[in-house]
C-alpha cells in the first residue's frame, strides 16, 4: 500500500497558531508520500527548540537529542545504517549558534543526509531572544538596544564549506518547499534546506508579509545550479531574497568513500564475537 499523509499521524501539535513550522510539517509529509517513504523507512534527528517537538506530532523513527546536536546524531546513524534516509532538523540558534561547529564539519564530510534548517531569525522556545540569523539591529529580550552582530548566512557558509546541495525555501510556499525537500532527500550527499519560517509570536520584523514582499523563485530566473560562484552571489542578495535550489553537485558521499560499508549496512550485519588471535599474535 502506498504511503499516505495519515500514516504519520500522532499527537496534535502545540505550535502557536500560524507558526511557520506548520508549513514545513505539511510539506514534509507530502515529500515523504511522494518518495513513498513510510514512518519506519526514514529517520529524523532533532535538536532543541520549537522544531524539536516535530516528533511528537509526526510518527517516524526519530531522535530528539540535545541543543545543537542533531547533525552528529544523524551523521552517525547514516554511517552505521547507510540504507535509511536521514533528515536532521534544527533551529537557527540550535544549528548555527550552539552547533555551529557541527554545521561546518558535517557539510565538509558530505554525509549523505538532509538538514532542514528552521530559520525564523529568533529564539522561539526560550521566548524571544536574538538568533545568529537575526538582522542587524533586531531588538529582542537579550538585545533590547538591537543586535550588534551581522547575521550569519547559512547558505554562503554551506557553499564555501563544500556543500553538495544548497537550497532555500519559504514555509508558506508549500508546493515549492515540498519539491525542494524531495530533491534534498533524494540527493546523494549533504543537502541543506534553509527555510524561512516566520515566528508569529516573537519575531515582529520577519513576518509572512515581510517575506512575501521579498522572496522570488530562482527557477523562474536563468540561474545555473551547477555554478557555485553564481550560487554564492545569489545567496548574498539581501534586498530581494531568492528561494529554490542554489547549488547542486555530484560528489561521493562520506559513506560512499568508506570501503567497509560495501554490502549490507553495519546494523544489518551480525555484531558477533570476533577472532582476535592474529591481532595478538602480531604483538609477539
Amino acid at each position, binding site marked *: 500500500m502506498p504511503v499516505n499523509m495519515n500514516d504519520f499521524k500522532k499527537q496534535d501539535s502545540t505550535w502557536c497558531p500560524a507558526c511557520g513550522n506548520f508549513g514545513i510539517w505539511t510539506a514534509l509529509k507530502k515529500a515523504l508520500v511522494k518518495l513513498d517513504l513510510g514512518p519506519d523507512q526514514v529517520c529524523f534527528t532533532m535538536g532543541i527548540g520549537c522544531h524539536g517537538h516535530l*516528533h511528537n506530532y509526526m510518527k517516524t*523513527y526519530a531522535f530528539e537529542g540535545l541543543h545543537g*546536536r542533531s547533525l552528529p546524531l544523524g*551523521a*552517525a546513524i547514516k554511517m552505521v545504517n547507510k540504507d535509511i534516509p536521514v533528515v536532521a532538523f534544527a533551529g537557527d540558534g540550535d544549528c548555527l549558534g550552539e552547533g555551529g561547529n557541527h554545521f561546518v564539519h558535517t557539510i565538509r564530510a558530505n554525509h549523505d543526509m538532509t538538514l532542514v534548517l528552521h530559520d525564523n531569525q529568533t529564539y522561539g522556545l526560550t521566548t524571544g531572544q536574538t538568533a545568529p540569523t537575526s538582522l542587524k539591529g533586531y531588538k529582542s529580550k537579550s538585545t533590547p538596544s538591537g543586535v550588534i552582530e551581522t547575521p550569519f548566512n547559512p547558505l554562503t557558509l554551506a557553499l564555501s564549506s563544500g556543500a553538495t546541495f544548497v537550497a532555500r525555501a519559504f514555509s508558506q510556499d508549500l508546493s515549492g518547499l515540498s519539491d525542494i525537500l524531495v530533491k534534498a532527500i533524494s540527493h546523494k550527499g549533504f543537502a541543506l534546506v534553509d527555510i524561512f519560517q516566520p515566528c508569529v509570536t516573537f519575531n515582529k520584523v520577519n513576518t509572512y508579509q515581510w517575506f512575501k514582499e521579498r522572496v522570488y523563485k530562482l527557477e523562474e530566473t536563468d540561474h545555473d545550479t551547477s555554478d557555485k560562484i553564481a550560487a554564492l552571489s545569489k545567496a548574498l542578495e539581501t534586498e530581494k531574497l531568492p528561494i529554490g535550489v542554489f547549488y547542486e553537485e555530484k560528489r561521493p558521499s562520506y559513506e560512499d568513500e568508506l570501503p567497509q560499508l560495501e554490502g549490507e549496512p*553495519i*546494523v544489518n550485519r551480525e555484531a558477533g564475537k570476533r577472532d582476535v588471535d592474529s*591481532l*595478538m*599474535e602480531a604483538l609477539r
Partner: protein
Amino acid sequence: MAQDIQWKIGGEAGFGIMTTGLLFAKACLRGGLNTFNYTEYPSLIRGGHNCMQVRVSDEEIHSQTKQVNILVALNMNGVTRHTEELADGAAIIYDSEDLTLDEKEYEKYDLIGMPWKQIIKDNDLKEVMKNNIALGASLGLLNYDLETLFGVIQDTFGRKGDEVVNANKKAAKAGYDYVQEHYKELCKITLQKTDNEPKMLINGAEAISIGAIAGGLQFYAAYPMTPSSGILHYLAKEGPKVGMVVKHAEDEISVANMAVGAGYAGARSMCGTAGGGFCLMAETVGLAGLTETPVVMFNVMRPGPATGLPTWTGQADIPLVRGAGQDDVTKIILSIGDMQDSFELTWKALNYAEKYQLPVIVMSDKYLTESHIGTAKFDTGSVVVDRGLLLSDEQAAKEEDYKRYKLTDTGISPRAIPGQKGTPFAANSDEHDEYGQSDEEIENAIAQKDKRLKKLEEYKKEMPTVQMFGKDDADLTVITWGSTKMPAREALKWLEKDGINIQIMQIVSIHPFPSEQVSEVISKAKETLIIEGNQTAQMAALIREHTGIELKNKFLRYDGRPFYPEDIVAKVKEMVN
C-alpha cells in the same frame, strides 16, 4: 637467583626512543622473559626529554621499578636526569665522542663510552641507526642472544624491505661486537633466556582496542587527545578490516553524540577521550541516560585541571565522571587496572551498555594506556556478545503497540532500531512516556525515573565489584583502584619475600558503588591503607559516602607520576613495624 634488571634509554624527543625501547622489550620477550615498559615524555614533538625504561625478569612482574641497571644516554640530559635512579654498579652507555663523563663523579658506575660516529663510519651505517647500535650494545653488555634481536628486527622492519632490515641488523651487531670487544670485563650480567612461551608486548590502549574488536565493536569515534589517542590509532588501523567505522570527528561533543547516534541506530558503539574531552562529553552522558541509548565511553585520565600535565598520569576524575550530566543519570562507571582488565572489561562494557541500555563509562589513565607489559595472549574463550533485549526484525514486525520505554519488572524495555518494520518511535531527550512522547505529568516523570534507576539493581546482580589479591589474614589491607593495582601487586610480591603479608582490594566498580563488598573487606581488615593518584583522596571520599567508613591512612600522589613498588613497600613497612 631471579633475574631482574632494568634498562633505560633517555634523550631528546624525536630520537626514536620509544621504538628502541619496544625492540629491546620484544627481544627479551622472545627469549621467554617478562617485561614492563614505562615511558615518560613531555608535551612536545621535538626537543625536550623522552625516556623509556624496560624492566626484564624471569618472574612475573607487574610494574616498573626505580633502580636502573643499564642506562643508554643519547645526550647529556640522558645521563644527568637519571643519575639518581642508577643502581650501584650500573652501566652507562653514552657517546664518548660528544660527551665527557668525569670518571671520579661516576666512579660507582661502569662507563661504556662508545664512539658512535666512528662506529657508524667503520660499518658504513646511517646516523639514524645510532639507537640500534645502542640496542646491540645493551644486549652485548647482557651477553644476550643477538639472533633473537635479529628476529625482532626482521619482523618489525620486514615490510620496509631487506635493505632496511639488513642495515638495522648490521647496526645492532656493530654495537654488540664493540661492547663485547672493548668492555668484555664489564659484561658481567648474563641475561638468560627461558623455555617459556614468548609473550605478547601490549599496552593498555591495544588491550582496550582488542577487547573492543573481540566484543563486536562496530563504531568508534574520537578526537585526538593524549593519552587516549592510542585507542583511536589502533582502531583506525585495524577496525575497518573487520567492518568497523572509526570516525575522527570535529570535537568531543560531536564524538559523544555520534557514539550515541550509532548506538541508537543499532551498532555496538564506543568513544574515547581524556579528562578535558570528557568535560565536553558530559551533556551527552545525560542524553544517553535519559534516552536509554547504549554507548561505551572511555575516559583515559591525565592530571588537570584544564590542560594540566598532558602527557603524565593521574587518577583524579572520579567527581567529573560521577557527576557527568545534570540530575541523577542512570549510568555505569568502571575502572580498569591492568591489561587483563583493559581487555575483559571493554568487551563486558559493550555488553552492559546494550543489556541495560545506558552509558557505560570506563576509566583508564596514561600509565596504564601507554605502558607496555609482556603478557600471555588473552583468553578469548569467555568472550560473549550480549545484545540484551534488542528486537530482531521478526520480533519487531510482530509488535502491535510498540512502547520503546515500556515499564517492566527489571526496568529494561525491548529495544527496536530505526528501519525495523512496525516499530517507529522517538528517542526523546525530554522526559517521555512509554512510547517516547514528551510527557511532563507527575506520575509519568516518577515512573520513568524509577524505571531507569531499577536497571542498575538488575545490573548489580552481575556487576564486577572488587578484585582481591593476597591473603585474607594479612597484616594490612591496601585499598586502591585503577592502574595503581600494578605497582601494588608488585609490592605485595616483594613484601611477601620479607615476611609481610598484605592484601589488596582493587575497586573496579565506581558507580554503582560496591558498598557491601567494600564494607566487608574493610571491617575485617587489621589495618588499611588507601593508595590513589589524586590530591584529595577521591576514592576514600566515595568509600566514606557509601559506607560511612573514614579511612585514616592515605598514600596519595598527584605529581603526574605513577606509584613505584619501592614507595608502597616503604610505606607499608613504616605502618606494619
